[in-house]
């Protein structure tokens, strides 16, 4: 399928719906959204103003869906969207937006700018104006099954490793299990601790769960690049496996955008509500904890703080769960300024971390995270997204900060009471 300007413009026309029309109609050009965006805050460059990133989409809305705009177009008064313009906008729409959702919380007229960026990417990718790295990641997700090119044997190797280490059997393809566990490529490659922590916690809690060889990957590059047809194909693998294995619930791993992809976009991509539930791992752990099935002993003495992944907290509603869980195992838990639903992004969400061209900018905007961490004075940072974790580890290294980053599931497993 070749990408053309015409396809891009058609995609723009297609994504514009009632909410988007109301958002563009309401914008008063107050500029407050810029103040919410880490890219503007850390660089001071006005071109990073969130609503400005949508300028081509706004003009298409005006020219196609308003009477005045149509008149202007007929009289040849309006500027058409061109390929050159879209190339110019590509870094604004992809490299300098992590779809963190902060601007959408701040806009006084209620514009959900993040929603519009997500939609605008559909037209950007249809017209061929998506970053090369994201194109190839999406191609790998479609052809190989994972954006980082990981195949099931790599997971099998990890399973073997976990079984040897913990002496716990990792269930695969178990029909009738309660939970289907997904992982992200990041975890498979970089954080094998996750699977081992989960196996131990689930064994102790008596949870019936399974992995699926045809649906282990939770991430969805189709959503990040803005290609709904591909996103649907990727989500459908999970839906097929969940239905085949008759699970009650699919567990989204410690990954932010995977949660958005499956929990919130999934049913809409598939065009039908799911017959199973989708929960983030922190929600499941919190439920186990509330039911008295997750018993821990002792507390971590290190002062530590928690980084809220945008898609899990602000765009996903998992806010209190990590705090309750941390309360069980952390002796000196300190909140960062702006923690919770107004937390600042790590700088690598929305596909930015997969886009090497964006790296210098990503490291620059990490300064806000640096300040947040420094103000707590801790050297241990907990989070619940493998992507945030990698991005923050790189940022910390870049700024020579001695801070260790850990996943929350892994931290809990350290204090687990086992073998009862």
């Amino acid at each position, binding site marked *: 399928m070749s990408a053309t300007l015409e396809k891009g413009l058609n995609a723009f026309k297609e994504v514009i719906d009632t*909410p988007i029309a109301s958002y563009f109609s309401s914008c008063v050009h107050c500029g407050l959204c810029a103040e919410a965006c880490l890219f503007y805050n850390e660089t001071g460059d006005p071109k990073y103003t969130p609503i400005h990133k949508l300028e081509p989409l706004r003009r298409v809305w005006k020219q196609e869906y308003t009477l005045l705009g149509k008149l202007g177009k007929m009289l040849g008064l309006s500027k058409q969207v061109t390929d050159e313009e879209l190339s110019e906008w590509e870094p604004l729409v992809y490299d300098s937006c992590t779809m963190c959702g902060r601007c959408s919380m701040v806009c006084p007229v209620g514009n959900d700018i993040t929603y519009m960026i997500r939609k605008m990417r559909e037209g950007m990718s249809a017209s061929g104006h998506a970053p090369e790295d994201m194109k190839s990641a999406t191609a790998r997700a479609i052809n190989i099954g994972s954006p980082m090119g990981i195949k099931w044997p790599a997971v099998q190797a990890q399973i073997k490793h976990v079984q040897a280490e913990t002496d716990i059997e990792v269930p695969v393809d178990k029909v009738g299990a309660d939970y289907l566990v997904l992982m992200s490529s990041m975890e498979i490659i970089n954080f094998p601790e996750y699977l081992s922590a989960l196996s131990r916690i689930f064994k102790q809690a008596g949870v019936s769960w399974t992995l699926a060889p045809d649906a282990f990957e939770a991430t969805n590059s189709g959503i990040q690049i803005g290609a709904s047809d591909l996103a649907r194909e990727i989500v459908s693998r999970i839906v097929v496996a969940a239905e085949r294995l008759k699970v009650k619930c699919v567990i989204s791993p410690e990954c932010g955008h995977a949660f958005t992809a499956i929990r919130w976009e*999934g049913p809409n991509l598939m065009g039908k509500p799911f017959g199973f539930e989708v929960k983030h791992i922190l929600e499941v752990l919190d439920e186990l904890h509330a039911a008295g099935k997750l018993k821990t002993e002792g507390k971590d003495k290190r002062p530590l703080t928690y980084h809220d992944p945008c898609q899990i907290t602000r765009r996903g509603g998992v806010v209190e769960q990590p705090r309750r869980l941390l309360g069980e195992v952390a002796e000196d838990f300190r909140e960062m300024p702006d923690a919770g639903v107004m937390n600042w992004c790590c700088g690598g969400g929305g596909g930015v971390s997969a886009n090497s061209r964006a790296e210098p900018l990503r490291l620059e905007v990490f300064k806000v995270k640096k300040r947040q961490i420094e103000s707590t004075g801790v050297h241990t940072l907990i989070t619940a997204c493998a992507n945030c974790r990698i991005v923050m580890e790189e940022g910390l290294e870049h700024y020579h900060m001695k801070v260790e980053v850990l996943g929350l599931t892994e931290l809990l497993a350290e204090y687990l009471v086992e073998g009862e």
Partner: protein
Amino acid sequence: MNHLDLLTFARGSALNWALIIFVAGVVLRFFEIFGLSRKTDLARPRTDSPGSGWRTMFTRSIPPQGMLKREPVTYIAGYVFHLGLFLAIFFFAPHIEFFRSITGLTWPALPSALVDASVVAAIVALAVLLAHRLNNPVKRMLSGFGDYLAWTVTLLPLLTGYMAYHHLMLEYTLMLSLHIFSVELLLVLLPFTKLFHTFSVFVSRWYNGDFFGRKGVAS
């Protein structure tokens, strides 16, 4: 045409036309918005949070955590302007009389001195906002002809109203006519400029609140 004829025209056919264009424009703009489709969200909401959209229509008027400190000028001048304009439009005795004449409804007025003060405050706030728009790099970049036009047609009724009330510059009847004309200009342009946010803000805030509400995040 003497001043009295002018006033009669301003209050008569000019007003009628302005109102017709205003109402038709608002209806048209709502058709443009609601004529587009919106897919129902098939993802199960986290909590049933009925009314999240409705609540956000009001709660969005409050600056989110940390924002007032970041942009005090926009927020404070914004509040002062909106409040001053609102009081002047709806709580000035002659205005209430006008609304009674077309709707039959009436309500208590504020003392003229208070309305006068709120008009002055609104004018000052508008001036501050314009200066800020010209100085702040983000606002300057976002602004075009439409923004300055909207600013001007919002200022004119306040200014002419103030001058008419205080019998400044021009003869009272003439100034009053100009005041009414400026309001008519505002009415005609409102649906077709960013001033339409007067109405659409309730729609956009509703969608935002509904989105966040479904996800279990109060916005």
